């Protein structure tokens, strides 16, 4: 029953994410076509529509294939390797189709002098939203509580401790007591909770994509989008911190024999988190669009400026490089969210820390599972 539920939930996740990826061109900015700035007029033309139609057809096929693979897992088709096959197919199909569409869109790229760059001076400073700060503090507090709880009970733990739990929260994997086995989840709580809180804080001040001239409409749309994304990430950070801290403390209690399974609150928070992550991004996509594109429709005929519009600054429409630009986070050219300015050493340092952190956690997990 539990396996069926996991697979069913995984299929629902694939469907929701797949549908969002499918409609990305519909919620994108006018002027941009699959990571290429082609100009506002060309992006509404027949050739651009043809590229979009090919995307919809291809992406629909990929979605159907990935769902069929997911169902294959549930019905026990022997050649289906793992439950994550549907996700892998979806991600691989997405990137292959994107690169094909990008190559086609490059042919339509605007060949013009460098675009103007614009900054709105008459909208005043951007206010700093409160929720990201709360998210950051919650991440730090929750992480420290989890680390402190594990640390203070370390000597009381038995020789073997649970390191993996099934869908009902009952332990199904054990390892010898070690620093890695005990501290993995608490340290992850601290790192991820605080990290997402900090990300939410940076998103509120990410580089804006301005249209000019438009009397500040695109800047206002951007401000609303940044605030929405920032709130979204901060809430994810708070829920994730709660879930991981709950799981961390609860797993220590299970190891000590005070409980036989994880506290049900862990499962409730996990379900809430996944629902919020999927529901929230769909809401932002449909309500705001890429970078607030759906809020600035009235002025979307005004040209985009610098940053997003300058094709020379982008590689494959995905990677932004500008040494002059002090921005760390830059809006994606295709899809919702942000990417890093690889011309800024701070952004590169952030990326290196992120990669080293992920590698550290992977090694810690492998070490803890050895026992």
């Amino acid at each position, binding site marked *: 029953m539990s396996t069926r539920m996991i697979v069913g939930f995984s299929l629902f996740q694939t469907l929701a994410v797949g549908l969002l990826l499918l409609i990305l061109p519909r919620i994108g900015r006018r002027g941009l076509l699959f990571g290429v700035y082609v100009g506002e007029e060309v992006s509404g033309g027949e050739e651009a529509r043809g590229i979009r139609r090919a995307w919809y057809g291809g992406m629909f096929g990929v979605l159907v294939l990935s769902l069929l693979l997911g169902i294959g897992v549930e019905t026990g088709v022997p050649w289906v390797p793992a439950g994550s096959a549907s996700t892998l197919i979806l991600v691989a199909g997405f990137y292959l189709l994107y690169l094909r569409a990008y190559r086609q869109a490059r042919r339509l790229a605007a060949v013009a*002098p460098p675009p103007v760059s*614009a*900054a709105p*001076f008459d909208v005043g400073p951007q206010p700093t939203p409160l929720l990201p700060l709360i998210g950051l503090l919650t991440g730090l507090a929750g992480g420290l509580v989890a680390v402190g709880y594990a640390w203070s009970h370390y000597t009381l733990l038995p020789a073997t401790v649970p390191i993996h739990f099934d869908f009902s929260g009952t332990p199904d994997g054990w390892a010898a007591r070690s620093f890695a086995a005990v501290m993995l989840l608490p340290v992850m709580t601290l790192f991820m909770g605080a990290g997402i809180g900090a990300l939410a804080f940076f998103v509120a001040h990410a580089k804006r994509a301005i249209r000019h001239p438009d009397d500040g409409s695109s800047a206002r749309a951007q401000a609303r989008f940044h605030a929405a994304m920032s709130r979204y990430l901060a809430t994810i950070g708070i829920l994730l911190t709660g879930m991981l801290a709950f799981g961390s403390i609860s797993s220590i209690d299970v190891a000590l024999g005070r409980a036989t399974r994880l506290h049900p609150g862990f499962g409730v928070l996990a379900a809430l988190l996944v629902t919020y992550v999927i529901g929230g991004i769909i809401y932002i996509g449909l309500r705001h669009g890429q970078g607030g594109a759906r809020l600035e429709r009235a002025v979307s005929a005004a040209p985009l400026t610098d940053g997003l519009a300058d094709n020379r*600054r982008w590689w494959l429409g995905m990677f932004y490089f*500008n040494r002059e630009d*002090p921005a760390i986070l830059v809006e994606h050219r295709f899809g919702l969210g942000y990417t890093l300015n690889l011309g800024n050493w701070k952004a590169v340092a952030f990326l290196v820390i992120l990669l080293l952190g992920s590698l550290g956690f992977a090694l810690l997990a492998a070490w803890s599972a050895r026992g």
Partner: protein
Amino acid sequence: MRRDLEEPVYMQIARQIRGWIASGRLGPGSLLPPVRTVASDLGVNLNTVARAYRSLEEEGFLLIRDRSGAEVAPPATEAAAGDARDLKGELRELLLRMRQAGISPEELQRLVSGEIGSLVRRAEARGRSRGEEEDA
């Protein structure tokens, strides 16, 4: 801002802000975005924007608050003697250049009167809107 112009970027930024202040779009006390935000929007170095803000501060258009941004300065009620002398010199030089460019003295007079009239009208409009805000 245009990257293909010969005019340095910081001067383009300063010229634009000066124009907005002169046109009344940015009134006295208006807060300008922090240097980092403007530099990020424009995709230029922080120092470029800071230089534009500093030059506007020296000219009396802005008051640099702190690292958080700048504020549009209120126009001085009385010009200092040294400033008035310098500005008169600049005006004379500009008028000479315009005359040399072929603009007739009558046309010059018309242009100057038009600009002064427009400044007075803007100041009156600002005064009226401030009065309405206080009444409200």
